[in-house]
Structure formats: structure tokens, C-alpha cells
């Protein structure tokens, strides 16, 4: 069996760049990434990107693809490399991935979120590959004195059929580097010509991961690094009054104690010394203005915002429902961390971030150095889920390094991470809907109140997948001191989950099968197909053991759609998951194996948050602090899981977030099918079924 080599390229050092440009053993650096700056909506137009930013071909034939989006497990390092390699006709075994540092001038927005990496970059990455291919073909044609159009490419080789000649990309790189970059738009392959795109491909970092070589933020080896943890206010909005560090400084291995913006940092020879030093600090905290805030007071405040729904059409059967969602922490497996090395005239940061430019801004602010003296390197991310958009851990690391004049590895403990997150907000939902005498839905009113500060808007179109007259949604907010942020699929985690629970209630009110009811009223044929496929694979309608129920839910956003059919039962005070069938359609999947993995992950996230995880607030503080209190599904609780990737052949859609929303909803609907009781609150508890 052949073992995959390490797929991580060594960065281009100054010396190799000079060598490349200098000509001897020249490599080819070219690219085509001029438009990325204007691609992501809302980012605004940035200056044109320098060419040659994406692909490099070394004389030894290695193809180095620079990936400018962060990989938090969604596999973007693999799928981006596939997109480039496809148009380049590269030998996949020679493709290596280099992670780009923060540089928006060069790469455009590097914010990794909104399931947008493939949708916004697929074209430019393919163009980058196609330009490189054109130059390599040009170099071969020049060498052989033939017309470029008589040459073909395959797996890293240019061939000339009539003469039988061939040259590898590595051999051609030097000559190709001397040719002018073609000015005409490169021709991209037709879908029928794809060799790599659409082929289930294992991720490029697997070998490094399973041998322990993969470098996440906290693994970055830096000469002379010291380790730091920070004591932060225990309450939301709390602040430091005073502290006594005498005992902390006595702890063996503690090097220094410094006050920084977020609290008191303890610096040690290793993380353990820093943690023990932190335990030994005597701190007087001002508990701040929020000690009266709890999950109960926030819930009350949310409920207060709800107004009465407009009257349903006369004669229709009215259905009303409420649903509650808790705060959720991101709880990435790798707690927040960053490494910073601040010198008088430079600041270098290594950080697992979804937001390299935000990290850079934080480093610039905290170091006080001009932007061109600050370098932010992006490592692998041990999970993200939206939680690595923020940059307070970067500020921490930079401040500490600046104060102690040493490179610093800042580690948030799991407890720090869980209590200082930007949480998925809690929400309260009030629904009113109606079905007429023939069982057709005739009204839909959904009010959602988020615990994330006042604001929001009045009624607008509900944006639901179903054809229901006057379907409307009002999004509101209530005052809350709890910091919130995007969490895998953001508001869809509440609004769309709730919608899929309520459509089930309308189906019940109409006395109809929830699958048929959906099929009858779904507007989009693509969603219908996905739903039908899930139902068919799951054997919808076939008999189940006593006490078991099947639930269904579907979802459409990010240019993709998904559906699950789940089977569950109640045993004592616990739910048991039996079988999950999921189908996802991302239009055209770059890497179906990766898409499948995201659907699996989204499904497990959905189940975990439907059954276990919740963040609560008491006396102005986050209650949960570690796994166990904030629990996730475990392997022994997994249902049988089947995920199918459907290829509808449409444009490349997003996939990181598409797997989540129908998962909690399908489970809630399965619980209803099994028990006859509706879920009114997540996470679902048997005792709270209504």
C-alpha cells in the first residue's frame, strides 16, 4: 500500500523566491487572481490582486497551490487545490498546499464563513490553473517549434501527439516562466472534461493529521517561546479592580505576571506553570452591571417583545406554537490560542483564524506597529464553526509578547473558551398559521426574538420554501449583554429549524403526512428532488417498530439544499436515535467526499444541539465551562448514518453550513412522530415535551 506523503508545502522562503525569479532552475509562478477582491458581497472593491498568487510549479514538478481561505475542517485546502489542479491538468500526486498569510491586497477577502469559499472563488482558482496550463503548453510548443493548439495536457505532462513528444510540467517550468502571461481570458473546461472536480478525494492533510505533524495554532514551534494564560472577569461586563500576584510569582516555572486589556496574564515556562500561576492569583473583580442577568430574565425579555399575530383567514383552522433555542458555544476542539512574537520593529503572529484580516488588525492595534511590520500567518484550525472570526485572543498574545519581550504562546483553557465565546444567540419563536378546510396552508406568521441586542425589523416576506399566501416573518431583538456571533449557518440554526418544525404542525393540522404536505407545497423543484431522494432512501412510509417515529425536514440556502429523514424513539427519559438518511445537493460538488463529510458533521452538530448542548447564564456569568456540562454527541450515541451527495449539475454551491438546519428539525419531527408530543424547547428533553 502506498502511503500518502505530506501534502503541506514548505513556504516559499526569500531564497526560493529569488531563485525562482533569477532563472537558474527557474520555477514558474503565475496566477490569475485579479478579481477576487470584489467577489465577496459586502467586502467592497479592493485594489486588483497581484498575479501569480495562487499557483507555483517547481522544477521538480511539484505544484504548489496557495490557499487563501482557512481550513477549519471543511476541506477548503483540498477543494481549492482540486479546482486549480483541474484546469492545470496537474498530476494530483504532485499537488501541495501552502496556506496564505493574511494579505487582502493580494488575495481579496480571506474571511472564511458563509459557506462562501467555493461559491466566490471557484472561477478565479480555475482561471489561475488555466493560465498556468496555457503557459506550460506555450513553453512546450516553443521548445518543439509546433503550434500550441496541437499540444495536449494530462497529469502534469504536455504531449504532442503527432511527434510523440512529451515534457513534464517540471521540465517546462523554467521556459514557461520566460513567456508573457496571456492577456486573453483563459478557456475553462466544460464540465464533461473534468477529471478531478467531482471525484471523491481524500483531504490533503490526512497524513500530517494521523502522524501528529499537522500544525494547529497551539503547535507552532517558535524558538524561545514562553506560555501564557489570562485570568478574565468571571462575569459578562465585569472588570479588574486589583490583583495580588505574590503567590503566583512563587509558582515554579512562572516567569512573569502582566496586566493586559482582557485581564491578568501569567507567563510560564510551560502551560502548566502558567495555569497554576493563574490559580494562585488573588484578584478583586468588579462584577459589573449584569449580575442580575440570567437565562430566565433574558427569556422573559424575549417573550415580552412578541406581539399578537394578525387574525388568520376566517373559517381556517388556526395553529399556534412557540419554540425556544438556547445560546450555543462554538466549542471548537482546539480552544482559542495564538502565538505572537513582538520585537521593537516587527510583530509576527501565528493563529488559527477564520478572519486573517481581523487578526491582523488586532495585531496592529495591540503592537502599535505599522501594518507593514505585522505578519499574520494562518495555521490549520482545530474547528471554527464561526467562532474564529473574532480576534481577542490575538490581542491577548500580542499584548503579552510586547510586555514580556519574548515570543508568547497564548492558550485559552477550555473554560476560558467556553465562557468567553461569541455565542449563537438564544431565541424565542412565536408562530401562528392556519389551514383551510381542504387542508391547504393559508396563513403563516413567524415572530422571532433574538437575545442579541435591540434591533431587527418588522414583518417581511417569510422567505420560506413553501407556497403559503402572506407568509411573513418578523425578526426582533432584545437587550442582552451576552456577546453573540455567527455560528455554523447563523440565523438558519433557529429560523429555518423552527420553520421546519412548524410546517410539520400545519401538516398535522391538515391531517396530512408531513412528507406529502411538504411535497405539495414546496416551490422549488430542486428541494423537492432532494427531499424525495431522502424519503425514498429512508423507506418513508414503511412500517416501524412500536414506539419509533420518523421525521423529515429540508433546507435550502447557500446555493445548495439538503434534507434528512430521521428515526427516533423514547426510552425512559432519553431519546434514542436509530437511523438518519441525509441527502445534499450542492449543484456541482468539487469534492463529493468532502461534501459528504460536511453533511455528516452538520448532522452531528444538529443532533448534538438538539439533544445535549446549551449555554445558560446565571448571575451575569456563563454557567457551562467544559465538556460534560456542554456536551456533544458521542460515537456510542450515533444512529446508523447514510449520506448521499446528489449532483444536480448546477453551479457550485456552498456546503459548510447546509447540513445543519434540517438536522434538529428532522429529529424534533421524529420525536413528535414517536411520542405524539411537540418539541417546544431545544435541547429537547423528554420531560419538556408538550
Amino acid at each position, binding site marked *: 500500500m502506498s502511503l500518502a506523503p505530506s501534502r503541506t508545502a514548505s513556504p516559499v522562503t526569500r531564497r526560493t523566491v529569488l531563485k525562482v525569479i533569477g532563472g537558474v532552475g527557474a520555477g514558474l509562478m503565475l496566477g490569475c487572481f485579479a478579481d477576487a477582491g470584489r467577489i465577496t458581497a459586502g467586502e467592497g472593491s479592493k485594489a486588483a490582486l497581484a498575479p501569480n498568487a495562487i499557483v507555483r510549479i517547481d522544477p521538480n514538478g511539484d505544484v504548489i497551490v496557495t490557499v487563501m481561505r482557512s481550513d477549519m475542517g471543511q476541506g477548503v485546502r483540498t477543494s481549492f487545490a482540486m479546482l486549480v489542479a483541474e484546469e492545470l491538468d496537474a498530476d494530483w500526486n504532485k499537488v501541495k498546499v501552502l496556506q496564505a498569510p493574511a494579505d487582502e491586497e493580494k488575495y481579496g477577502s480571506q474571511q472564511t464563513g458563509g459557506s462562501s469559499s467555493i461559491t466566490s472563488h471557484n472561477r478565479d482558482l480555475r482561471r489561475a490553473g488555466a493560465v498556468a496550463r496555457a503557459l506550460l503548453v506555450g513553453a512546450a510548443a516553443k521548445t518543439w517549434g509546433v503550434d500550441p493548439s496541437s499540444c495536449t495536457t494530462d497529469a502534469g505532462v504536455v504531449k504532442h501527439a503527432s511527434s510523440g513528444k512529451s515534457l513534464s510540467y517540471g521540465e517546462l517550468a523554467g521556459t514557461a516562466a520566460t513567456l508573457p502571461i496571456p492577456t486573453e481570458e483563459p478557456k475553462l473546461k466544460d464540465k464533461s472534461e473534468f477529471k478531478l472536480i467531482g471525484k471523491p478525494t481524500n483531504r490533503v492533510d490526512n497524513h500530517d493529521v494521523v502522524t501528529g*505533524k499537522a500544525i494547529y495554532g497551539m*503547535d507552532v514551534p517558535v524558538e524561545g517561546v514562553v506560555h501564557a494564560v489570562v485570568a478574565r472577569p468571571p462575569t459578562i461586563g465585569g472588570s479588574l479592580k486589583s490583583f495580588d500576584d505574590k503567590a503566583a510569582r512563587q509558582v515554579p516555572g512562572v516567569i512573569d505576571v502582566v496586566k493586559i486589556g482582557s485581564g491578568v496574564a501569567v507567563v510560564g515556562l510551560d502551560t502548566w506553570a502558567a495555569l497554576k500561576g493563574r490559580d494562585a492569583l488573588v484578584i478583586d473583580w468588579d462584577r459589573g452591571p449584569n449580575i442580575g442577568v440570567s437565562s430566565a430574565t433574558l427569556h422573559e425579555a424575549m417573550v415580552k417583545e412578541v406581539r399578537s399575530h394578525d387574525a388568520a383567514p376566517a373559517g381556517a383552522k388556526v395553529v399556534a406554537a412557540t419554540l425556544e433555542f438556547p445560546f450555543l458555544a462554538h466549542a*471548537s476542539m*482546539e480552544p482559542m490560542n495564538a502565538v505572537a512574537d513582538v520585537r521593537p520593529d516587527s510583530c509576527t503572529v501565528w493563529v488559527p483564524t477564520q478572519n486573517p484580516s481581523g487578526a491582523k488588525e488586532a495585531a496592529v492595534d495591540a503592537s502599535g506597529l505599522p501594518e507593514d511590520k505585522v505578519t499574520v500567518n494562518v495555521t490549520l484550525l482545530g474547528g471554527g464553526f464561526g467562532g474564529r472570526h473574532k480576534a481577542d485572543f490575538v490581542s491577548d498574545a500580542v499584548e503579552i509578547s510586547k510586555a514580556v519581550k519574548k515570543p508568547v504562546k497564548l492558550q485559552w483553557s477550555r473554560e476560558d473558551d467556553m465562557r468567553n465565546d461569541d455565542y449563537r444567540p438564544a431565541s424565542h419563536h412565536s408562530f401562528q398559521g392556519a389551514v383551510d378546510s381542504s387542508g391547504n396552508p393559508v396563513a403563516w406568521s413567524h415572530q422571532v426574538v433574538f437575545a442579541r441586542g435591540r434591533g431587527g425589523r418588522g414583518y417581511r416576506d417569510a422567505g420560506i420554501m413553501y407556497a403559503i399566501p402572506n407568509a411573513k416573518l418578523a425578526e426582533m431583538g432584545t437587550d442582552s449583554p451576552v456577546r453573540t456571533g455567527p455560528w455554523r449557518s447563523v440565523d438558519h440554526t433557529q429560523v429555518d429549524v423552527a420553520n421546519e418544525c412548524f410546517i410539520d404542525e400545519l401538516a398535522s393540522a391538515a391531517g396530512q403526512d408531513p412528507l406529502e404536505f411538504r411535497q405539495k407545497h414546496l416551490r422549488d423543484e430542486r428541494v423537492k428532488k432532494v427531499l424525495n431522494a431522502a424519503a425514498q432512501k429512508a423507506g418513508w412510509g414503511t412500517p416501524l417498530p412500536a414506539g419509533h417515529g420518523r421525521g423529515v425536514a429540508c433546507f435550502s440556502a447557500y446555493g445548495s439544499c439538503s434534507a434528512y429523514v430521521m428515526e427516533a424513539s423514547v426510552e425512559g427519559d432519553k431519546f434514542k436515535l436509530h437511523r438518519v438518511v441525509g441527502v445534499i445537493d450542492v449543484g456541482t460538488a468539487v469534492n463529493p467526499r468532502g461534501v459528504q463529510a460536511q453533511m455528516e458533521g452538520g448532522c452531528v452538530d444538529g443532533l448534538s444541539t438538539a439533544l445535549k448542548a446549551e449555554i445558560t447564564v446565571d448571575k451575569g456569568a456563563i454557567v457551562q465551562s*467544559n465538556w460534560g456540562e456542554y456536551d456533544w454527541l458521542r460515537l456510542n450515541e450515533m444512529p446508523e448514518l447514510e449520506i448521499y451527495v446528489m449532483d444536480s449539475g448546477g453551479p457550485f454551491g456552498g456546503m459548510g453550513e447546509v447540513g445543519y438546519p434540517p438536522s434538529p428539525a428532522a429529529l424534533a419531527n421524529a420525536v413528535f412522530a414517536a411520542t405524539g408530543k411537540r418539541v417546544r424547547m431545544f435541547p429537547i428533553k423528554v420531560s419538556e415535551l408538550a
Partner: protein
Amino acid sequence: MAQYNISVNGEQHQVDAPPDTPMLWVLRDRLGLTGTKYGCGIAACGACAILLDGAEERSCQLPISEVGSKKIVTIEGLTRDGSHPAQRAWMENDVPQCGYCQPGQVIATAALLNKSPKPTDAEIDQVFETHICRCGTYHRIREAVKQAAKETS
């Protein structure tokens, strides 16, 4: 501080550390073996799993003073080239998503196979109910464990 002589991946290391220092931080911060991950520090997640005389141990709960002459193997020492059946099965089944938990999962598999070369589903459940994968790769983990078992026996 006290001085300890410990065996890690077949090499003897001398470490000066307070006796309560968990091996997790000794491995990561002192010996530069960062394949062993920190996920909770309270034995709740399994990211820090190592082999101690061939059995799974949570390195966040193992003080250096308790290692004695027992032999530690970390993910870096399981094999140098990724050729352990568990490592191969992990790559072939494309188990990792973010990958952060996976060294611990692979080590747990190696320990399980040491003890029980043909593990039953119940045995697999028992080992992995204490391992968290926040990315939700459980389905593939089970497949990979079974494949690794097949190749071992």
C-alpha cells in the same frame, strides 16, 4: 522542580518539572511533541490520549511523577510514516475533518487493538464514548476502527 527520566517514543528524556505537571504539557511544551492535543484538561475529551505501556492514557491526567519506567508512545511515535493499520484506515476512510481530535482517536484505536484485536461494536462504543469529535466524524471513525482491526488480524 524535580528531575525525571522518562521514556517517550523509545527515547529517554530528562525533564525538570514539578511533580504534578501533566504529561500533556511535558510532551507539548517541553519535548515539542505537539501531536498530542489539549481539548479539556479534565479527562473529558480524549484529545490528549497517549499510549502508556500500550494502553490508552489521558496525558492531561498523568502527572510526570507517576510515569516511572512505563513507556510512553505518542502519535508521533506510533509509526514514523503513518503505516500503523489505524493510521492507514484513517487516511483511506478520510476520517479527519479539522483533524484536531484525530491523534487521540488513532491512539485510542491502537490501544484498543492491542487489547482486543477484533473489537466488537460494544467494545468500540466503550472506548469512544469518552472521545469527543466536535466535527462529528464518528461514523467514519467506526468504519476506520473496523478496517484497522481487519488489517491487524
